[in-house]
C-alpha cells in the first residue's frame, strides 16, 4: 500500500469510529455543564442505534440514499425522548444521577431487543442495505495529496460531527444560553437568584445529550454494525463519557479526545493491515482506550475540573 493510501486508510477508519463518540461526548458535555451527570449515554446510544436501524430497514425503499441520514435524525429524536426519563428522574424527582443513568442503561437494550423480537420474530435485525457509505467531496478530492487523504472516499458524518462540535463550543462559551447553562451547573442557587430557570436549563442539557447521543448511536449502527442486536453498542457510551472527562468538559476537548479514542478503537480493527501495529497483540489495542482513560484521570485531572454542582440535585427553596 502506498504511504498516502495508508494514511488515508488510517484517517478514514479513525473518523468512522470517532464520529459516534464525538457526538455522544458532546451530549455528555451539555448534560454535565447543566449539572446532571449522565452515565446513561450508553443506553441512549442503544436507543439511537435501535431506532436508526428500524427506520432504515422499513424505509430504505422510500428514501433511497437519504435513508441513513434520516435514520440519524430519527435516532436523535428517539434518544431525546428516551433521555426524558433521566431528566425527569434527576431534575424533577431528585433521583441519584448515577442510579438513574444505570436504569437508562439497563432499560435500553432490553426494550430494544423486546421490540425487535415482537416486530421481527428474532433477536437481531437483518443487515441494512442502505448504509452511510463513503463520500468524495466534489472538486476538493482533486487537490493533490490533501484531497486524497481528507476528501476522497471519506466519511461525511465525521465532518458533520466536527462541525457540531465547533457549534457546541460556540454555544456553550459564547452565547447567553451557554452562559446560563453553565451557571446552573456551577452554582444553581446563584443562577436561580438571578432569575435563571434552573430546572428548564437542566432539562435542556439532558435532552441535548439525548439528541446527540441518539444521533451517535444511529451513526454507529448504520456505519459500523449494520444491524441491531443486544451487542451492537458495547461500551461506546462509556468511552464517550470518558472522552468528555478527557476533554475537560470542553466541547473541542471532548471532540479531540473522541477522535483519539476512535483512532484507538479503529486500530484494533484495521491493525492487522498496518506495519508495526500488526505485531502488537490485539488485546492491548482493545483495552488501550479504557486503560488510557484511567491513567489520564490519575495523572492529569484533579477533582476540580467538573462543573461544581454536577451530580447534585437542586431544590428550589420557598
Amino acid at each position, binding site marked *: 500500500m502506498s504511504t498516502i493510501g495508508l494514511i488515508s486508510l488510517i484517517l478514514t477508519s479513525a473518523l468512522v469510529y470517532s464520529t459516534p463518540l464525538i457526538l455522544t461526548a458532546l451530549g455528555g458535555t451539555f448534560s454535565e455543564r447543566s449539572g446532571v451527570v449522565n452515565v446513561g449515554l450508553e443506553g441512549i446510544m442503544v436507543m439511537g442505534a435501535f431506532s436508526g436501524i428500524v427506520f432504515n430497514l422499513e424505509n430504505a425503499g422510500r428514501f433511497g440514499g437519504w435513508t441513513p441520514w434520516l435514520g440519524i435524525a430519527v435516532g436523535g429524536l428517539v434518544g431525546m425522548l428516551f433521555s426524558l426519563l433521566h431528566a425527569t428522574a434527576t431534575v424533577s*424527582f431528585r433521583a*441519584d444521577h448515577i442510579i438513574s443513568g444505570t436504569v437508562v442503561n439497563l432499560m435500553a437494550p432490553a426494550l430494544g431487543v423486546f421490540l425487535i423480537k415482537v416486530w421481527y420474530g428474532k433477536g437481531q435485525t437483518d443487515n441494512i442495505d442502505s448504509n452511510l457509505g463513503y463520500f468524495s467531496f466534489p472538486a476538493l478530492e482533486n487537490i493533490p495529496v490533501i484531497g486524497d487523504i481528507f476528501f476522497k472516499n471519506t466519511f461525511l458524518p465525521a465532518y458533520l460531527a466536527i462541525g457540531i462540535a465547533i457549534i457546541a463550543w460556540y454555544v456553550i462559551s459564547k452565547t447567553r444560553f451557554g452562559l446560563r447553562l453553565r451557571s446552573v451547573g456551577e452554582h444553581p442557587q446563584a443562577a436561580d437568584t438571578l432569575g435563571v430557570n434552573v430546572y428548564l436549563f437542566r432539562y435542556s442539557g439532558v435532552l441535548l445529550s439525548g439528541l446527540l447521543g441518539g444521533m451517535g448511536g444511529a451513526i454507529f449502527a448504520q456505519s459500523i454494525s449494520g444491524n441491531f442486536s443486544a451487542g451492537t453498542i458495547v461500551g461506546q457510551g462509556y468511552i464517550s463519557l470518558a472522552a468528555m472527562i478527557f476533554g475537560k468538559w470542553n466541547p473541542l476537548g471532548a471532540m479531540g479526545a473522541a477522535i483519539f479514542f476512535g483512532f484507538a478503537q479503529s486500530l484494533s480493527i484495521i491493525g492487522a493491515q498496518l506495519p508495526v501495529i500488526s505485531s502488537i497483540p490485539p488485546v492491548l489495542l482493545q483495552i488501550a482506550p479504557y486503560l488510557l482513560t484511567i491513567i489520564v*484521570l490519575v495523572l492529569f485531572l484533579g477533582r476540580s475540573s467538573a462543573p461544581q454542582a454536577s451530580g447534585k440535585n437542586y431544590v428550589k427553596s420557598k
Partner: protein
Amino acid sequence: MNNRNAKIRSILVPVLSVVLGLAIGAIIMAAFGFNPVVGYQSMLNASLGNQRSIGETLRQATPLILTALGFSIANSAGFFNIGLSGQALCGWVASVSFALIFPDLPKIILLPLCVILGALAGALAAAIPGVLRAYFGTSEVIVTIMMNYIVLYLSTFILQDAMPESFRSSLDSSNRITENASLSMESLSRFFGGSRVNAGLFIALVGLVVVWFIMKKTTLGYEIRAVGLNPNASEYAGMSSKRSIILSMVLSGTFAGLGGVVEGLGTYQNFFVQTESLTIGFDGLAVSLLGAGSSIGILLAALLFSVLQIGGLGMQTGAGVPFEIVNVVIALIIFFVAISYIMRVLLAKVMPDKRQKEVIQNLESSSGGQDEKGGDL
C-alpha cells in the same frame, strides 16, 4: 408513632416499586398483544412450579446475593461500585484457571483454594479503583466502568491466548473443572429435581450473615459507615478515611469475586468467552438498591429477581412473550426506587394525618440526602 410510620413507608417504597414495575410490564405486554395474566402465570410456573424450577431459582439467586452484598458494602462507604461485573469475572476466571492447573489436588485443599483465590481476584480488581480514589481522588464510577471492559477483554485473551491449548475444549470455552474443584452437591441437586443449585448457596447465605455482622457489629463496619455519612467528620474523629475507602472497596470486590466463583465452580463448571459484561454485576447492583442494602432485603430482592429471570425464560416458551420484558421490568423497579422521593411525597398525601404534613415539609426542604453518593464525575 412517627417512627413506625417511617418504617412502614421504607418498606412500602420497595414493595410499591415492585408492584408498579410489574404493572407497567403488564401494560407493555398487553400493548403488544400478549395476555399479561398468562404471561405472569407461566412466569410463576416456570420459576416456582416444581422442585427443579425452585432449585434453578435458588441457583440464580446465589450470585445475585453475593454481588449485591458487594455493592452494599461500597455503598455504605459512599461509593458507587459499578465494577461488580468485572470483579465477578476476575473471580470466575481465577477460580476456574486454578482448578484447571491443579485438577488432581484433593478436594479438601483444591476447592477452598479455588474459592479463596477467586475472592482475592475480585478484591484485587476492586482495590485498584479504591486506591486511586483514596490517593488521587479519581472517580470510582469511571474507573470501575473502564475496568469492566479491561477485564472483559483480558478474560477472552487469557482463555484464547494465554492458557495452554490443552485447557480448552474449543476456542470459546475451557475444559470442565474436575469434581475436586466443583461446588456441585449431588444430594442438594437431587432434592431439587436435578437442578444446578449448588453449595454456592451456602456461601451466599453465610455471606449475608457475615456482612451483617461486619457492618453492624465491628469497628471496621462502623468506620466504613461513618466515612459514608461524613468523611470529614470521621477523619476529624481520628479514623483514616483512606483506609476505610480502600477496605470497603476490597471487601466489596471480595463478595463480587465470590459471585463469579459460584458461577464458575457451581453453575457452569467451566469458563467460556463473554461477549459483554456479566449481567450478575448490574443485577446485583439492582438487587442491593431494591433491598436497601440490608441483609434481609437483599435476600428477598435476590429471590424476586431470580423468580423474574428464571420465570422469564418460561414466559418466553410458555406465553411467547420475549424474555427481555423481564429486564424492562427490573429497570422499571429500580427507576421507582430511584425516584422514591416523589413516591414518599405521594404516599404521605394519600395517607394523610397530622404528622404526614411534617413529613412532606421535611422531604420538600431537604435535598434528599442522596446527592453526594454518585461521587465526582
